[in-house]
């Protein structure tokens, strides 16, 4: 997977899922992303870690336009993100996102959560959308909860519904923003298992997470961020066994005990 480290040639271009080049972003005066260069290939699994406030979430939120970058360029599936709303729509069409706080729609049932966007954005019929929703709810192993409201489910179940909801839009890229950080310890595994399956099926994934076991198991590359910049990128074995940057070593020594 070292090819992903270099800039792709035009022939390889279709293999690139996300390209970020010289991306900067500020929150007011605060320089939150500094010169981010990252190219993610199709079917690649990237885990992004780093201390809180290092800009991990902001980085992946720039990929589907929840945050706007102010300098540099971001190309998602061949579409460059610009101020034009249409480029944003095109990018969001291909990118699904799972949030730390699940963000399910509490006034809709599990099934309605999953069918809403396919019906209203993709123009599917209700029957088609429900068939697709049940398919993905089965994949995340909660088809029997489809008539319930989110508040009736456990955190782990809610997060699995959130994953199914994103998958119902048939995204080419999935973003996970600390998907297990808000979960009770007993529920982390059920969510990670679903994510591992997804990775094995070849989904392009960018995962902000501190689940180092997950990173070891499925990541093609681990990105370490601190102070708004990418400090180190490496394959998981190298990353954990022989971190090169002092900051990375310090971080790993803090979280791996």
């Amino acid at each position, binding site marked *: 997977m070292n090819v992903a480290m270099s800039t792709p040639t035009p022939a390889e271009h279709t293999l690139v899922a996300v390209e970020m080049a010289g991306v900067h972003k500020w929150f007011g005066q605060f320089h939150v992303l500094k010169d981010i260069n990252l190219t993610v290939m199709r079917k690649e699994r990237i885990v992004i870690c780093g201390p809180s406030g290092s800009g991990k979430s902001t980085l992946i939120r720039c990929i589907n336009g929840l945050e706007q970058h102010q300098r540099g360029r971001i190309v998602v599936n061949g579409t460059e993100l610009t101020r034009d709303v249409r480029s944003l729509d095109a990018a*969001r069409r291909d990118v699904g996102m799972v949030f730390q*706080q699940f963000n399910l729609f509490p006034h809709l049932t599990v099934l309605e959560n999953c069918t*809403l966007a396919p019906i*209203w954005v993709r123009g599917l019929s209700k029957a088609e959308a429900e068939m697709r929703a049940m398919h993905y709810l089965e994949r995340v192993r909660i088809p029997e909860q489809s008539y319930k409201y989110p508040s009736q489910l456990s955190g782990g179940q809610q997060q699995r519904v959130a994953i199914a909801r994103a998958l119902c839009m048939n995204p080419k890229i999935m973003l996970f923003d600390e998907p297990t950080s808000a979960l009770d310890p007993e529920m982390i595994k059920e969510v990670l298992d679903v994510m591992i399956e997804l990775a094995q099926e070849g989904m392009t994934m960018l995962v902000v997470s501190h689940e180092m076991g997950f990173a070891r198991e499925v990541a093609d590359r681990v990105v370490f961020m601190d102070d708004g910049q990418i400090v180190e990128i490496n394959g998981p074995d190298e990353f954990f066994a022989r971190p090169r940057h002092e900051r990375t070593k310090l971080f790993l020594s803090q979280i791996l005990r």
Partner: protein
Amino acid sequence: MTTRTFVRTAFAPNEPPPLEADSTASRFARSLFATPANFALTVLSVGIVALVLPPLIRFLFLDATWSGTSRDDCLANAGACWPFVRAKFGQFIYGFYPAAERWRPNLVLAFGALLLAPLLIPAAPFKRTNALLFFGVYPVVSFVLLTGGNLDLQKFLLGRFLQWTTVAGVGFGIGLRWAFWTDFLFSAVVIVALVAALAALLRASVFAAVTAAGMVLAGLGIILLAVDLDFGLAPVETRSWGGFLVTLIVAVTGIVVSLPLGVLLALGRRSRMPAVRYACILFIEFWRGVPLITVLFFATYMLPLFLPRDVTFDTLLRALIGVALFAAAYMAEVVRGGLQSISRGQHEAAAALGLGYWRMMGLIILPQALTLVIPGIVNNFIGLFKDTTLVLIVAIFDLLGQIRASFADPNWATPVTLYTGFAFAGVIYFVFCFGMSRYALYIERRTAAYGRGS
């Protein structure tokens, strides 16, 4: 003795909760007379009830006059003079609407009840058709029935700039004029052409734009046709409307207009477009900063001074617009409170799924926000229902106005006429406001089901 290790051998079974040891009566007594302060409050409360309730019951029922035809029958008793209400009932309900035409407001009220009831019952079918009938067709039908229709429209848009002199006076004989309807057709063609050109300029779908414009114009045409046709109904000026009919018209119009308008204003106030935001803030703050009485007074007596001489508005229509805009400004702030309580995560999740602004608002944000502020919305509705009585200031006689007007009738001048009239008004207002309040509670409980968990 304590043990260091413990391993459960059998799980404890679920048991029903223990029964309350003491009876309801003793718990009642305990909570009412537990402390000297409790005791004093209980005695005080009972005292107030004992002081107020018996005279009220005596006045309204026991000492009341129930039958009779004139003031003489009521003079003998100290209680309420109900024959007065019976004699004036028509006036209380219809004002001075001609007696021979009262079947028309009756029909309007009956239609309203028939359409509203299934709309309010969640389980009733055909909600979409029902809503279309109530919000789209019913107002036009009511307008025609109540006013008599046959507006005798003269000019539409082009006719204001060009002279249609040759055919101006010619009519169809069914209340329509050639001048207006040719004007309307030509104007419609011009508008559709303009919309198509604009769509082409903005690179939007010309077909969709033309279809939308065509449908709006067709709808407008049907409405205009309905109010312009001569159905042979005798015209009844709004000046002679009154009583409960006017109360309902003002309140229902205010309620039906203020909610959607308030939602739009609330969204506008949170818009990222400065022009929209400031326009909405200006509108809301202006209408909230002015008393309703001033609004009504201004609309009725001052506005004509600023408008061109030949532009005339009906007094009731002016009051309706004033009340609706006033209520919308208040509604906007209630809705904004609801919008603010929806977390950013909901917006982000909707955006990440590719929902645009209007779908995000319509499908995700507003359903949650409006559910949260049902108490505030109903509070506004109830306030509005009672505020309608202020139209009295511009010489429109609503229920209360009619009741007060009827006190002047010497045939019913008794010491208790005043109290009887106000008691009747109080009962009517209470029934409607309490009804709204209970219905809102019911809907609140229904919609809150998703928040309660299992």
